[in-house]
């Protein structure tokens, strides 16, 4: 367990070094990524200038949801953005190189790209979340902080697994141009708001099929004390992470078996 982790961080460090050769690029990417996150925050602030609550949630409570999703996705961006290279790698055959090395192919793919600008997203997410928590009148107990940390880590696993899964489409559908993985990844924006406002269809999708709600809405209700929420909701992030990781592992095996290389 320790050795693969060490190798993973070594690989990340190599990527990081090459990325830091283009320092201006890093700043432009970081600013761009942060600005994209600010859109929904500008909307929220404007929105709450005209209404006082959204389905029983205050502005600050919703910022906690936003913060949780942003932080999880920022950490994913930093450590697992390599999955977004999978389609290009499978297409041009450089995926062969991954297969002949004596390290887990999945691990190498995760480390194929270090998007250090994710640090901007995750820091902004943390700030937003802490601000939200500070103004929401949270009743702090011994499990509050552990559940928050668990939620963010499980959120990272969930968003990474979903990106990984959707990018595996490369094994079945050779066109590297599809925007389908981006579409699925962007569905996380649904979970930046309380799920109560949506219709039943969307609620089911973001709870069961793409369970982004399990890493924001459900644990947040428990922590913020919004409405009646059963205690086991603290474990919903674990369910989401375990389920999505298992699905990704399963499909990954089948995908690897299907991969044939591109010939010469």
């Amino acid at each position: 367990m320790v050795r693969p982790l060490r190798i993973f961080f070594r690989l990340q460090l190599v990527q990081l070094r090459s990325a830091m050769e283009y320092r201006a690029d890093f700043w432009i990417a970081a600013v761009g990524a942060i600005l994209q996150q600010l859109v929904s925050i500008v909307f929220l602030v404007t929105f709450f200038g005209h209404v006082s609550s959204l389905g029983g949630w205050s502005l600050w409570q919703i910022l906690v949801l936003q913060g949780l999703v942003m932080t999880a996705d920022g950490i994913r961006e930093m450590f697992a953005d390599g999955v977004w290279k999978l389609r290009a790698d499978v297409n041009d055959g450089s995926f062969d190189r991954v297969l002949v090395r004596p390290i887990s192919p999945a691990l190498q793919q995760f480390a194929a790209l270090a998007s250090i600008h994710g640090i901007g997203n995750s820091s902004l997410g943390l700030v937003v979340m802490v601000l939200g928590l500070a103004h929401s009148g949270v009743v702090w107990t011994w499990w509050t902080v552990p559940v928050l940390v668990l939620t963010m880590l499980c959120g990272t696993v969930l968003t990474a697994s979903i990106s990984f899964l959707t990018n595996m489409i490369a094994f079945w559908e050779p066109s590297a141009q599809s925007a389908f993985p981006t579409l699925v990844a962007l569905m996380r924006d649904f979970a930046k708001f309380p799920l109560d406002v949506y219709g039943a269809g969307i609620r089911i999708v973001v709870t069961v099929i793409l369970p982004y709600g399990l890493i924001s809405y459900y644990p947040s209700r428990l922590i913020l004390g919004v409405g009646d929420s059963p205690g086991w909701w603290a474990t919903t992030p674990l369910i989401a992470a375990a389920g999505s990781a298992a699905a990704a592992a399963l499909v990954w095996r089948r995908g690897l078996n299907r991969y044939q290389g591109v010939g010469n």
Partner: protein
Amino acid sequence: MTSLDTEAALRGRTSPGSKYVSLARTTLQQAIAYRITTFFNVGLTFIWVIILYYLWRAAYAGRASIAGLSWDQMRTYVVIAYGINALVGWRTGTAMMATIRTGDVVFGMVRPLNYCTTQLARALGFTVVEGGISMVFTLVIGLLFLHIQAPASVGSALLFVLALIIGFLTKMLVVFLVSLLTFWTLNGMGLMWSQQAIMQILSGTIVPLALMPGWLQVVAKVLPLRGIVSTPLEFYLGTASGWAGLGLLGLQAAWLVALWLISNLAWKRAFRIVEIQGG
């Protein structure tokens, strides 16, 4: 071939106008080849239409109007705003940047054509496809599910179309100016993200200008970006009329002229520092 056809063909070879048309036709064909990608690219902007629809629905529960807009108007605003915003989409911007990144820009430099107009013509080709798909999304979602309103009157429909065209040209010039920054940096992705985000806020896509907090409203009202989404929609909904409407059109037109001049100045400057990657 009749003599008339020959004459037309000859004229086609000499007049610069038709050269731009054939440039637009090339990119149109490219865009059609990648129609599935374009479909998803447009589709993903509509995720926010769904989110905004539900958020505003909750906000309007038990209220007739917010900042002078009724629920019917707000719903219409959200759908059409995203429809317009998808007009000059991701592909147009990345295509402009790609010519600079790959060094294809040299062809733009040696052609006896205006570089800025060349880029606009190429963008137009993409836009026909992006715009077509976006219109289908807008109409299907708008008419079948969200029941959007018709334009306030025939006059406002005409003004909407006029403002839409000016706004469309404005957006192309803004995207063009942003793409020129690729001469200085290699990170087109970060530039596109920033451009998209700022555009979404200041054009009034994410939320109508009238609802914004005071300081943001002041900024958004003077900048050209409002002409892209907010101004056409104000005509559509009939919230701007008379002198106010004339003022909006004037501002839009003035910014268009200014942006055209800036663009032409900017690419000439940018060409001086050009550095082609690879050998």
